[in-house]
């Protein structure tokens, strides 16, 4: 059976640019759902002020079981999808994420004080596939996927690992979820609330973003993948 061929990254149709592959969209949402479930069950277990959340999962003991069950797809599914179906666009994302230049550093304070606060950012350094703030988001997501998964596994099986490592896993798990949750709050604010960034949400649901939005926010990437002028 012939399958509809997935568009090339950078394809332009009806004023929209193809920005995220199906694998990337799937990985993003699997990561979102599993992380949110882990966050909610974790808050139920860990923070007395939010232990009422446990009731949503049928009590704290159920929340503890769900936390462990969900941790497996959290640790593996998004990673597997990107390993199997990620291809060049995913390599491209990783390359951009791990490439840091002086202009990335310059971007951050400028962006936070202007665009982030609803002002127009003059002379903001041009971004490639993602800007410096999104690079931090990507980096933190990757790092905490590793630290949360490993420290969680160690806490799950305390008799398998040496005591010093089990004890060290607790602060690692704690710091990781707190930092990632900070990042998540900013990420959700920008994608769901912020007037100038809400357009990005369409990209991560359908894969397509508004061409004007892509030109304005990711000019280097836009030129690179479409071959057009931004």
């Amino acid at each position, binding site marked *: 059976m012939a399958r509809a061929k997935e568009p090339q990254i950078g394809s332009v149709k009806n004023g929209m640019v193809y920005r995220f592959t199906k694998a990337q969209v799937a990985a993003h949402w699997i990561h979102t759902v599993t992380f949110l479930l882990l966050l909610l069950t974790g808050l139920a*277990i*860990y*923070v*007395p002020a939010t*232990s009422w959340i446990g009731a949503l999962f049928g009590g*704290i*003991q159920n929340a*503890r079981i769900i936390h462990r069950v969900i941790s497996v797809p959290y640790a593996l599914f998004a990673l597997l999808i990107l390993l199997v179906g990620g291809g060049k666009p995913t390599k491209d994302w990783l390359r951009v994420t791990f490439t840091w230049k002086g202009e990335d550093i310059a971007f951050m304070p400028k962006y936070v004080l202007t665009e*982030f*606060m*609803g*002002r*127009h950012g003059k002379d903001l350094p041009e971004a490639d596939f993602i800007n410096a703030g999104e690079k931090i988001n990507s980096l933190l997501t990757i790092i905490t996927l590793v630290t949360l998964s490993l420290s969680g596994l160690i*806490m799950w099986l*305390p008799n398998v690992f040496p005591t*010093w490592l*089990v*004890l*060290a896993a*607790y*602060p690692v798990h*704690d*710091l990781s979820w*707190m*930092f990632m*949750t*900070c990042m998540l*709050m*900013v990420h959700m*604010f920008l994608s769901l*609330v*912020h*007037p*100038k960034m*809400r*357009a990005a949400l369409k990209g991560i649901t359908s894969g397509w973003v*508004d061409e*004007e*939005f892509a030109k*304005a926010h990711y000019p280097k990437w836009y030129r690179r993948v479409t071959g057009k002028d931004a």
Partner: protein
Amino acid sequence: MAKTMFIDSTKCMACRGCEVACKNWNDLEADIQPFNGSYQTKEDFATQTYTVVKMTEVVKDGRVDWIFGKRQCMHCTEAACIMVCPQNAIQRSPAGAVYINQEMCIGCGYCTQNCPFEVPRVDPVSHKCSKCSLCVSRVENGLTPACSKTCPTGAIQFGERRDMEVAAHKRLAVVKRSYPNATIYGNEEAGGTVLYILTEDPSVYGLPPHGTQVPWQVKFWQNFARPVGNIALGGTLVLLLVAAWFNFVQKPKDPPVHVEGGVK
């Protein structure tokens, strides 16, 4: 006022009356275990066993010595279990008893993992953690813990901390005549709510080494990781509130170039 339990291991004759009295007062099951080649009755702490007398034979200069280690919670004045409990279910009484509020406990086992003396035990069925409470209900009503009350040789004394410290040092001087290596254990290690006189290395009694402290991982977690994480979470919230204010309430004079979905 801070109280102290002073356990003089040289006076212990391993009658295990303390184990029985503990079960009796705390209404714990007998939990009979198979014979394993030792006079020791209980292998280790359990959800139904808060105190254990460890028995070890030590051969020195052709002489056999029986070492009896009456083990229970050390009721640390800087308690790792209290620091790590995510539900704040572990509390400290005015006398210094560290006890678990069973209703608040969720059985996560953080205290079990982080206790340097490996005391608390989680019941896998009830999901509740339990350990010696220093008989907190007795102690806070002017009585002595059940184990101390029943001890026939006076090996388990209980009283004001200062009195017990004096008693321990007096006794140490006497014990040192027969056991030159005798030491006091529990002051440096756990703040002195439980004091021991030991004639051998702590490991012989099933205790961690002299100078054992709250693990550095727990200190790093509580004193650094958690405050930093809290500040980050609070700071992010403030940042987002400020951003929301500037985006929606205090709108810019020159409207953004690319407006998608419209601004309120």
